[in-house]
């Protein structure tokens, strides 16, 4: 994937990648000096594009910002190093809980449901350092695929043959109607295998899936609460071969 990552540097610097790709590039930049230098230089160039957008702000903006600053405490350096943005801590907790539930082999995803429901949850979860997700994203052969969901939203799959595992990230614009729920699937030897059922009202999830080498596709369906043994209404399908 290094070739892939290298070709992404321009899009990365322009903020034209999704959060999953950003995580993969960030990871690579921590390890590759040449790319880090490249990215830093291209970022300088991209930042100069802000010159081209020069525009006089309303005068009250200055007063408002200076007033806010006078009452805003600065973050000490150590805090910044430990957790990039403290207000994201809740997302870390939510994502960790979700991943832990998955790791324990349970298909119940009610943990932190309200937080996970918020639209940014997938993005925030991906930014976490949760090791399973990180390992997969950092795999040298990681492949990223995404598909829109019927009804709005997106499912993204990252998988690595080397790690024999993948991450399914789903964020729907809205919960299915009629009290139904989303269910995740992989297709193995032509047979759909449930990879988890979301709670009623839950619209997003980050799910680590083991044994991805034997999966030919990932799917999302809409099911009655508690899920079904086989998909009823498929809303997205992502080929992984």
């Amino acid at each position, binding site marked *: 994937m290094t070739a892939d990552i290298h*070709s*992404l*540097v*321009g*899009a990365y*610097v*322009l*903020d*034209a*990648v*999704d959060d999953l790709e950003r995580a993969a590039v960030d990871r690579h930049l921590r390890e590759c000096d040449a790319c880090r*230098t490249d990215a*830093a*230089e*291209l*970022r*300088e*160039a*991209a*930042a*100069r*594009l*802000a*010159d*081209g*957008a*020069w*525009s*006089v*702000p*309303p005068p009250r*903006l*200055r007063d*408002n*910002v*200076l007033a*806010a*600053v*006078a009452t*805003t*405490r*600065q*973050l*000490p*350096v150590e805090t*910044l190093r430990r957790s990039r*943005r403290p207000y994201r801590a809740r997302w870390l907790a939510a994502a960790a809980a979700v991943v832990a539930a998955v790791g324990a082999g349970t298909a119940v995803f009610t943990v932190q449901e309200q937080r996970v429901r918020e*639209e*940014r949850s997938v993005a925030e979860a991906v930014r976490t350092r949760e090791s399973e997700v990180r390992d997969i994203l950092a795999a040298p052969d990681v492949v990223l695929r995404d598909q829109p969901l019927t009804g*709005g*939203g*997106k499912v993204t799959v990252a998988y690595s043959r080397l790690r024999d595992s993948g991450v399914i990230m789903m*964020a729907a*614009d809205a919960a299915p109607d009629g009290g139904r729920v989303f269910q995740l699937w992989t297709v193995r030897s032509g047979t759909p295998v449930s990879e988890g059922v979301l709670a009623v009202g839950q619209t997003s999830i980050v799910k680590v899936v083991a044994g991805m080498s034997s999966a030919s596709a990932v799917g999302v369906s809409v099911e009655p609460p508690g899920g079904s043994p086989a998909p009823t209404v498929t809303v997205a399908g992502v080929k992984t071969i």
Partner: protein
Amino acid sequence: MAERGMSRRAEHLTPVPGPGSDVPVGANDLLLAVGRGDEEAFARLYDLVAPRVYGLIRRVLRDPAQAEEVAQEVLVEVWRTAARFDQASGSATSWVFTIAHRRAVDRVRAEQASAERAVRAGVAAIETPYDEVADEVAGRLERQQVRHCLDDLTDLQRQVVIMAYYQGHSYPQVAELLKTPLGTVKTRMRDGLIRLRDCLGVEVTA
């Protein structure tokens, strides 16, 4: 590569004036002072970067009221996290505009996620890359330089860079809007930026 590295380092050698000095200092020195809690330095940094922070966000969001709100968030964030700025990894202005751009793009994506407005907005936007700044203060030197350097890119390079940076589109969205393969779009973003870098130099003199 080596030359560029040197020019960036040279910038860090700007003499730091003593306390109370009225000698203008660069954004790097100001941001370092802000990181030590210097509110006066923050006010000066504000004057230096606010028109670009606000202008950039407004350009991406296309809505002055929202832009003002996001610009305030960004500038307060600069104050809050200034201690994190590490001048070894880039200039202060780049650090600030990176935060601003990212925040503006996050806001646009959040909106895009709730509607399929990408295609409509994008197609409209391709036609008018510069309309919004036309009435702004004319003759800014940096702006001329950036525009000159943008003109130096191939049409496709310029288009993909503008659509991503000024309009907040992801590269798959750009590919779809331009009916161009994903790989081509990624590559043009990268080599377009390289050309831009070479035209501008990576020094940031603000």
